[in-house]
């Protein structure tokens, strides 16, 4: 991408400095390392994946949230047990719009809240026995369940319960799959560790332990087998992508967490390519597959038309000419549609300033879609729980002078927004109403704000429509009372 300045770097640096000045000494020093003015060459780096400063109001969640809420809770056919007190399971009950087919209570447990409901006596005497019994009760209630996922909350780890041995014992007794996740919220510094734990457990407790033929005797590997991971299927995102893979001749033999069919996962080790959408949450798995089975992986982006087409061409390069031809045909077929969408929406969005603050991939994936396809200008971006590699991938994609903020605090983000007055902010629901109060259009970019799918080509229309709806939304022009207009300009 050519070099372009989106903010005056001196101004941006001053803004960061001014903002930091409000902190006490220690926090100021620490927070300074998380904030930078972008130089696309990556000269100005931020640090990341370290503890929050206490007291600052961070948006981060915890390891349990990353493990249960983002990944494990979505597995179809596995009962996700929030193991511990009632709260964590309550707050993460159906709050992510990760879609899955199946019938609730029969073979789909995604929209439930299962809790072992720790009481004081469980904290004092330990909860392993309760878990043991809970599993019996659950399989009695839901005989079609393939198994259960046990997700530990803080007290479980702190009091030294051993969910691993309970899992092993009950697997033998019941014949079900039971996967223990020690994802207590106090471990790690954010959601990120939760992803890692989930990846490792899936590899060790499912993919490595079972063979495809155990579940599907007729199954044979094929030349176009791929695994698709790291797409949360928000609003149906992943289904859009699966349809495209089908259109270009690939066979998706396993996937998560898009409507994740856990019984297919053992096939992952026989695939030809692992396609990763959110590298932050699922590249651990991809790397394991590469290391142990030599399966290459590719980090895709299906947000935005340009990146979708580019990702497809890249994927085709792992295969033969047939797939390459299919991809070209696909692109040819859909280009007129993409142009129509751009013609409709780009003029309405061109040059609009955007600030992003999201999770582990969208701060750069979305940024690219908004800039390349819709002509918007991203003047600030940051991650809740990214690592260095994420930022390394980010710097070159953003314009010069853009603010980079890692684990941004409520205080910092408020100041940046007040100073920069963006036309649109894309972040989470906790931020949404703060900025809407200021009269600034906002989209929740974790959950697509109850919309979606945004992935793929049809999703691009929805993305473009929604950005227009936000930026040019009807009520915004009424924010200020007409009798106040002259006084407060």
């Amino acid at each position, binding site marked *: 991408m050519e070099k372009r300045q989106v903010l005056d770097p001196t101004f941006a640096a001053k803004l960061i400095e001014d903002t930091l000045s409000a902190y006490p000494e220690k*926090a100021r020093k620490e927070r300074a390392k998380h904030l930078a003015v972008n130089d696309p060459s990556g000269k100005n780096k931020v640090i990341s994946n370290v*503890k929050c400063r*206490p007291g600052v109001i961070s948006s981060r969640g915890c390891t349990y949230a990353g493990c249960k809420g983002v990944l494990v809770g979505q597995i179809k056919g596995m009962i996700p047990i929030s193991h511990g007190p009632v709260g964590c399971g309550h707050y993460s*009950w159906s709050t992510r719009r990760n879609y899955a087919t199946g019938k609730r209570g029969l073979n789909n447990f995604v929209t439930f809240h299962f809790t072992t409901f720790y009481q004081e006596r469980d904290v004092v005497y330990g909860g392993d026995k309760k878990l043991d*019994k809970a599993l019996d009760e659950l399989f009695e209630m839901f005989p079609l369940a393939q198994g259960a996922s046990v997700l530990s909350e803080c007290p479980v780890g702190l009091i030294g319960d051993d969910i691993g041995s309970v899992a092993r014992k009950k697997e033998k007794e019941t014949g079900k799959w039971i996967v223990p996740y020690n994802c207590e919220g106090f471990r790690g510094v954010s959601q990120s560790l939760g992803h890692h734990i989930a990846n490792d457990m899936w590899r060790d407790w499912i993919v490595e332990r079972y063979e495809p033929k155990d579940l599907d005797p007729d199954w044979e590997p094929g030349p176009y087998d791929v695994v698709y991971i790291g797409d949360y299927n928000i609003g149906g995102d992943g289904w859009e992508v699966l349809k495209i893979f089908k259109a270009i001749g690939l066979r998706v033999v396993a996937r998560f967490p898009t409507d994740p069919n856990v019984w297919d996962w053992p096939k992952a080790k026989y695939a030809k390519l692992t396609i990763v959408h959110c590298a932050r949450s699922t590249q651990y798995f991809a790397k394991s597959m590469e290391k142990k089975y030599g399966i290459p992986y590719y980090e895709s982006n299906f947000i935005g038309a340009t990146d979708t087409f580019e990702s497809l061409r890249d994927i085709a390069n792992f295969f033969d000419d047939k797939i390459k031809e299919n991809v070209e045909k696909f692109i040819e077929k859909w280009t007129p549609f993409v142009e129509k969408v751009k013609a409709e929406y780009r003029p309405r969005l061109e040059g609009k300033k955007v600030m992003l603050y999201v999770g582990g991939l969208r701060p750069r994936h979305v940024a690219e879609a908004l800039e390349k396809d819709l002509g918007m200008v991203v003047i600030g971006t940051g991650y809740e729980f990214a690592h260095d590699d994420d930022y390394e991938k980010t710097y070159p994609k953003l314009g010069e002078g853009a603010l980079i903020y890692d684990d941004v605090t409520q205080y910092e983000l408020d100041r940046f927004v007040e100073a920069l007055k963006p036309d649109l902010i894309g972040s989470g629901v*906790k931020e949404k109403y703060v900025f809407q109060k200021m009269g600034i259009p906002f989209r929740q970019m974790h959950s697509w704000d109850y919309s979606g799918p945004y992935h793929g080509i049809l999703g691009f229309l929805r993305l473009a*429509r929604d950005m227009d709806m936000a930026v040019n939304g009807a009520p915004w022009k009424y924010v200020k009372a007409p009798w106040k207009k002259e006084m407060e300009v």
Partner: protein
Amino acid sequence: MAEKKRNGIDSYSVPEEISIYDMWSYNTTMEELGDKPWWELPERFSSLEEVWEYTKSKEYKEKNLSREAIKIDPEMACQPLGALLAALGIEGTLPYCHGSQGCASYFRFEFTRHFREPVMEAASSMTEDAAVFGGLSNIVEGLQNAYTLYKPKHIAVFTSCMAEVIGDDLKAFINRAKQKGSIPEDFPITYANTPSFVGSHVEGYDSMVRAILEQLAEPKEEKTEKINVIPGFDPYTANIKEVKKLLNTMGVDYTFVPDWSRTFDYPLGKFEMYPGGTPLEEVKNAVNNKGSVIIGKFSLKKTAKLIKNKWKQPLQAMEMPIGVEFTDKFIMTVSEMTGKEIPPEIEEMRGIALDAMTDAYQRFHGVKAAVVGDPDIVYGVSKFLLEMGAKPYYVVSTNGTKKWQKEMQALLDSSEFGKGCKAYAGMDLWQLRSLMYEEKPDILIGPCDLKYYAREFDLPLVRIGLPIMDRFNLHRYPIMGYEGVINLVTFIGNALLDHFDRICPEVNFDKLR
């Protein structure tokens, strides 16, 4: 003559040549994508239908009701959430959660989704090192950062599990922070222990309310002519406004504490860090008022003890003023405590509520409802239903105690319309499902989580309580007071009519109802 279904809400303002694409085209079956569901594999169940029918059986019900180790769709949250609500009801207060990384985000999620408003809360963000060394350093730095950045007038500290399991001593830690100069010695910090493995958000709310009242109290010799009005855990802003309207109409001088009516309902135009709350001066002075009325007797047991035993104030701990009789009781209680006469304006409001009730009661008569939620709210809503001749057939409170169950059952038994109705403390929604397959109710009333069951049973759902994450503005309509009576008549009565209009045969599709 059937019409093709359309996803109406998602119609697009896009040019026609684009809009013809079906944006919900992912409804493509998984089979089309080459998937084979595992439950169709030969060695598995051959029939989903058979298992589904089994889950509706009496046998299943018995197993379901005797579960001991797992809860399935319980309707309750944990203590710190309640503490957060209490804190947000005090002027200039920064709530501060002392516990693991992440808890605070969950609590903020819950309220911000329910109210669609900003929710501010700082946290200690403890991680593994704190598990080893304790959370002292987190709170020392945390209070300093919070105080310096966000300039509160008061910080309310409460705990989540981790701090409780490792045994952090809140009082000592806060003193330590003050000694270290994190915050000025005289800066007001209140604190409460609110472990998630005890009680629910309701008990956490109680603990924090008590802590605030007790720890901020500045007792004086003389009593004022004011009374305190203390609400139970209540996920509405309009309820507070309605109760205050009644008090104002009566000309009563009162301290309403805590008060989140503006916290979650203030104008667009400017973000305010501390938009609402009971003035701190009033909170400090609450101890000196001449009496207290608690509205939400199941929510505020510790607070009641403080007022009664420690403050030795005259106290009336009563039901939430939901329905006409409990509202009457509230009015009379306040009148008695303050000596203020009940003015004709109150009677006018009451009479209009009665008018709405009698206009509509024939649609409620004999209707069986499943009512789910917090103990105080379902108690009040059930009372309203009885007053309309409806039957609160299943009254479910996962966080209800045995004592609540007894009182709730007594309320049901006290009315001829309560015949056959039953209260269920500790029950979860999956258990309620089994009851409903035995005897199907006509309507569901409670938080939005019930929607899954409303869909399964094809029943109308009237959303009341916390959380409501899928509808707009409902917290802006009171369910308390006489205005609340009118709203309950409207919401429940019209939901029944909507549903009936939908399921009735065409011959019975009347323009008059």
